[in-house]
């Protein structure tokens, strides 16, 4: 009885799964190529449409269930012309104030491919297939446990030694030796009698205290390595390292102004209107996707963006994001970014270090006067294609008897250039 039931269940299962597989293969072979469809969709449609969510245009997942194939083709190829002959199309156009462009370059086969990709079953399978690869990639590394284990082992070894010596003493096996007091007394007697040793010790003490004292005094006011906690856990590594966004895309003021600029939130929104979640498998320190999505939400809270409706909330009281400034010159030293970025053409990394590798930015350079000046002394100025000042440059080179003039020789070491 039991076995018969099981058998029928198994055969049922087998039948449905075979039917399912058959259905999928039928789907793929009959209509279009979903892989090519994905490529085309990402290239042409994904700017305004997602599969599962409304964006500028409506969600396109399962669009073939809602509209006929021929209707979709006419709409995609030229929706403006189609609206004139089809009342349904006119209604569809009222979905959004933004007009959809025409895609005359897509062939019938290509549109079929896209439609194939938007079918719910196919898209889910492709997404599932790609996400398993991502999950396997990055595992966060955490060494704290290792350190704690090491410490425990160390303590245990100490305890074993201690026990061993106590056991030895209790057994009466301890060797006869001088007491510690006697030993100390003999060492002290030898030391007290040696005048030369006294002299050496005093010299050593003076030199080392002078060294320690001066190194302490010299590091006051130097913030190398300063790494404050920022209001948003923003990773430069993800933005400029992994995604290769240029530094100046966000710090756009660097090319024209004294300050390199804290990017206003509208620059963040240029990308984050579209990107409301971090990619699967993203990790910063111990924080995974769930925590990091909340960090993007902080940006939306600051500017008043509704990520579900994809619009700014009207009448929202915007809040500034209070970033903590890391690189801070004292008020009596003048520094201008545009002079270094635009005129000298320096890379940002020259002073700020490998920011594109930092999840959390820290001050890379000491920003001391010595550091400024040694760079000015070493850096040769690029005089090519600067005909206007040719004569002056030649005279300068003659005056110093050099071929290439350094920034310092151009006046980059005059006090008044930076202190006034």
């Amino acid at each position, binding site marked *: 009885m039991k076995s018969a039931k099981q058998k029928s269940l198994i055969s049922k299962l087998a039948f449905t799964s075979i039917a399912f597989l058959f259905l999928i293969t039928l789907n793929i072979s009959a209509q279009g190529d979903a892989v090519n469809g994905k490529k085309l969709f*990402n*290239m*042409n*449609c*994904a*700017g305004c449409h997602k599969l599962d969510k409304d*964006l*500028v245009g409506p969600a396109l997942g399962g669009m073939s269930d809602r509209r006929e194939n021929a209707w979709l083709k006419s709409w995609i190829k030229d929706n403006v012309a189609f609206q004139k002959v089809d009342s349904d199309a006119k209604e569809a156009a009222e979905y959004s*104030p*933004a*007009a959809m*462009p025409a*895609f005359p*370059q897509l062939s019938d086969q290509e549109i079929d491919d896209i439609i194939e990709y938007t079918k719910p079953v196919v898209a889910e399978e492709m997404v599932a297939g790609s996400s398993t690869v991502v999950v396997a990639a990055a595992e966060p590394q955490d060494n704290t446990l290792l350190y704690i284990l090491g*410490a425990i082992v*160390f*303590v245990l070894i*100490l*305890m074993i030694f*201690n026990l061993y010596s106590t056991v030895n003493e209790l057994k009466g096996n301890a060797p006869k030796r001088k007491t510690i007091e006697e030993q100390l007394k003999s060492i002290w007697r030898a030391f007290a009698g040696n005048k030369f040793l006294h002299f050496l010790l005093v010299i050593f003490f003076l030199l080392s205290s002078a060294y320690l004292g001066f190194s302490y005094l010299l*590091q*006051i*006011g*130097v*913030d190398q*390595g*300063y*790494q*404050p906690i920022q209001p948003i856990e923003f990773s430069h590594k993800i933005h400029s390292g*992994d*995604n*290769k*966004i*240029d530094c*100046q*895309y966000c710090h*756009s003021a660097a090319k*024209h102004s004294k*300050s390199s*600029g804290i990017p*206003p939130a*509208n*620059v963040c*929104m*240029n*990308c984050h*209107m*579209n*990107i409301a979640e971090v*990619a699967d498998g993203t990790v910063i320190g111990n924080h995974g996707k769930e925590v990091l999505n909340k960090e993007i939400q902080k940006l939306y809270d600051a500017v008043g963006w509704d990520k579900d409706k994809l619009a700014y909330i009207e009448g929202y*009281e*915007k*809040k*500034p994001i*209070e970033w903590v*400034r890391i690189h801070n010159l*004292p*008020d*009596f030293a003048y520094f201008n970014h545009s002079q270094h970025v635009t005129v000298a053409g320096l890379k940002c990394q020259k002073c700020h270090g490998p920011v594109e590798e930092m999840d959390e930015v*820290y001050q890379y350079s000491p920003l001391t006067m010595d550091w400024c000046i040694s760079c000015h002394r070493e850096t040769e100025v690029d005089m090519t294609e600067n005909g206007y000042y040719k004569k002056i440059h030649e005279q300068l080179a003659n005056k110093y008897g050099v071929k290439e003039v350094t920034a310092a020789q151009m006046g980059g070491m005059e006090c008044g250039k930076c202190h006034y």
Partner: protein
Amino acid sequence: MKKVINIIVLVILVLVAASCDRSKRAPNLQYMPNMYEPVGYETYGANPNFEPGMEERLPVTGTIARGAEFTFEYDASIEGYELAKINLKSPLDLADIDAARSKSLYTIYCASCHGTKGDGQGDLVKNEKFLGVPNYKDRDITEGSIYYVLMYGKNMMGSHSSQLTEEERWQVTAYVQELRNN
């Protein structure tokens, strides 16, 4: 036994001392803070006199940037876009177009999505962060509409007017046209 307890306490103390590196989270001491800290309000600093507490202010509506030639008279709507597409012309003539600079500006501000060749295959598209970026050649656009989109953005592209000056926007427009024609 006492010895063992002492050792354990010592080890714990050392671990605690090593684990809290407060030093890098706070700025260092300064010799004379009143010479280091500016007296005036700093550009990106806080200023309690203005709402919502920042020194930076938005310019008054209708402000014309220094060096800009005219106010932008097309509004952010489909009609504005169509008008700009037909009527808006670049003030730069051939001699004003700086080939090297327009390319470098394009590379910094556009190529992440639109690709160095303008084919919509930038790094962000390749990483599947931003999708659906068209090839410039597939779209019916004019220099007027390119400039308009730089000003206001379009669909999922935001405005880039805060990152580029008027003249730079026209330089970028010229480079986009060059990519379209090649």
